[in-house]
């Protein structure tokens, strides 16, 4: 994907609000030990938008994602789909919700059940789509199409177990799963942090392609602010469970208002400025800073 492509994508009209979070909080524990993992967060995700949630480890990104996905309960606040509070009571309502909101997780190696064959993952998706009773030949057709979307050959995958695949292949198969389900919102929780650089670019391209073809909202959770700038329309910066800054990617990256964002940006290594290993005092300073608390 070239720079002009990205700009073209960014110019799309983004008006239709799909998902809106109002004063959402997640509190673990009670009383004095209460830990507010996510603290009073507001957000708006629009159709066809790529949103990045950036923050360091433990800032509450994944907890927020799980709340949106319905994997953990929301302690306070509410989540609205198309302006209506989400229906998430009965099993049927949950299944309907999960048809529209799906996720890709960080570690491809733990995303698969090592005891079942991998075509089972795709077959389960077809079942969720309500096509359980489809003849097997048609199911194979659907799966083959999905696999070719992610540059995999379905014939090579049948009767294989997850450990026979590479990390990149596993993650691409997860995207094939998303392709079959075609949800309206995809939460990608650091989908590229555990795969090699080469697979990383392919996976990002596939996600962007999904957005373009299916008008899918993608919530991209990452700690890599450079990557977030590369892919997203909107960026939320998260720290200790709160959004410290939000706005379009250009606003946030080029004109950061919060000190935390500035610090994050200053930590991004630049390819054009290699570390100066010859000057000793810089290294010594860093060591002193790192070990200062101990001595």
């Amino acid at each position, binding site marked *: 994907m070239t720079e002009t492509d990205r700009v073209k994508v960014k110019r799309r009209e983004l008006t239709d609000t799909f998902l809106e979070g109002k004063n959402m909080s997640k509190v673990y524990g009670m009383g004095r030990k209460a830990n507010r993992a996510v603290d009073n967060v507001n957000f708006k995700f629009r159709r066809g938008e790529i949103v990045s949630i950036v923050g360091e480890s433990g800032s509450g990104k994944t907890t927020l994602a799980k709340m949106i996905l319905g994997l953990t309960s929301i302690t306070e606040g509410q989540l609205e789909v198309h302006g209506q509070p989400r229906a998430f009571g009965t*099993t049927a309502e949950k299944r309907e919700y999960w048809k529209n909101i799906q*996720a890709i*997780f960080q570690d491809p190696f733990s995303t698969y*059940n090592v005891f079942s064959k991998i075509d089972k993952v795709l077959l*389960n*998706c077809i*079942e*969720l789509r309500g096509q359980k009773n489809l003849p097997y030949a048609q199911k194979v057709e659907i799966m083959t199409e999905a696999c070719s979307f992610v540059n995999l050959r379905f014939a090579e995958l049948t009767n294989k177990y997850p450990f026979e695949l590479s990390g990149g292949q596993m993650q691409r198969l997860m995207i094939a799963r998303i392709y079959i389900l075609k949800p309206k919102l995809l939460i990608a929780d650091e989908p590229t942090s555990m795969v090699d650089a080469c697979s990383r670019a392919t996976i990002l391209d596939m996600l962007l392609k999904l957005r373009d073809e299916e008008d899918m909202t993608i919530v991209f959770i990452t700690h890599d602010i450079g990557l977030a700038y590369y892919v997203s329309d909107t960026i939320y910066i998260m720290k200790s469970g709160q959004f410290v800054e939000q706005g379009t990617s250009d606003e946030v990256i080029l004109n950061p208002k919060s000190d935390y964002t500035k610090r994050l940006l200053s930590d991004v290594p630049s390819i054009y400025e290699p570390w100066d290993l010859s000057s000793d005092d810089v290294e010594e300073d860093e060591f002193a800073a790192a070990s200062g608390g101990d001595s």
Partner: protein
Amino acid sequence: MKHRLRTTFQNTNFLVGFSILIILLLLTFVAPLFMQGSPLDMVGTLFNKPGNYVNRMGVIDAPKYPMSIEVDSIRLGAAVSNEEAAQMLEWFEKSELDIEWKMLNPAKDHAEIVELFLANYDDSIRLPGTSAYRKGFTRLYLKVQNLLSADGYVVQVEDSSSDSGYREVTKIQSRDFTNVKDVPARRFFLLGTDNFGRDVFHELVSAIGNSLMVGLIAGSIATTIGLLIGLTSGYVGGWVDNLLTFVTNMFTVIPSFVILILLSYSISSSSRSIVVVAFVIGLTAWPWTARSVRSQTLTLKNRDHVNISRLSGFGTVRIIVTDILPYVLSYVVMAYILQISSAILAEAQLSMLGLGPSTTTHATLGLMLSWSMQFQAPLSGAWWAFIPVVLSIALISFSMNLMNTGLDQVFNPTLR
């Protein structure tokens, strides 16, 4: 899976334990084929030493040899009191027969006195004195003669065709004896007989089988309950978890052996069969399995593959069965093996307290120990009645623990 099985059977510990168990199992299945009758048939007499044994019927049917030494009078002499000997000497004196009786001592030489008396006594010699006094000598003679004729055995078998209902087979005189080597019904008891004259080896083989059955039933029940409670409370969470953890903790805190004793005691002894005892053991042994399965489920619950299954709209039961159970199964198999071995031990403990299965038709290892203790085998030095039993229990537990260690090494390679 195939690979796992292969590495399991390449593990030395597992292989040794498994072989011991298979040998014991083969013994319980194969040995009864070569033995007749029920394992608890009384075939011998009290505590026969291990090795050859001649049963009583065999002695009767064997060719008899009359003893050449005259021992009757000696034996009769032993049955005669000092007063009676003195009475005999008195008869010799009064009868005025030509008998050398003066050097005989009524306190010592019973045999000679009796011999002389039997040879010389004559009812027709009329002694002076009252008739009661004379009849005393007649009674003495009859008594000594009866003693002689009552000796030996008459063997009869039931026969409906004869008038008395019995038919005399043979007579065994007291002077007959048998050469053991000629007896056809000589039996070889590898481990001798116990207090009821039962073949200890035959009993032991069937007891190992029954004890393994107790272990298998109790272990299956305990593992199933523990697995169900652990998986449910770990995965479902919330108040269900609180309730089930509360129950589990309660069972853990109260020593399970106490519950076991109370439960067995409350069941009447008539209905306390082997299966019932196995059930009772199984019902008290589950808490540790439940606890560890719960903790494993808690860590598995937050794995991404479970999240993906939840996002695919699967129900709780389906997720537990397909996404959690296979992951805890290796642990559960190990726990199952340990449950079996501890259930066998628990049965032995219960039986020692007299709360084990109350049966006279089936032996278990615990019952054999209990019997040998009740009927004084250790005091009578009958080591064969309990040492082999103790060794079998130790061997079973040892093999199970060895298998467990082997499985642990295969499924938790970091321990190696």
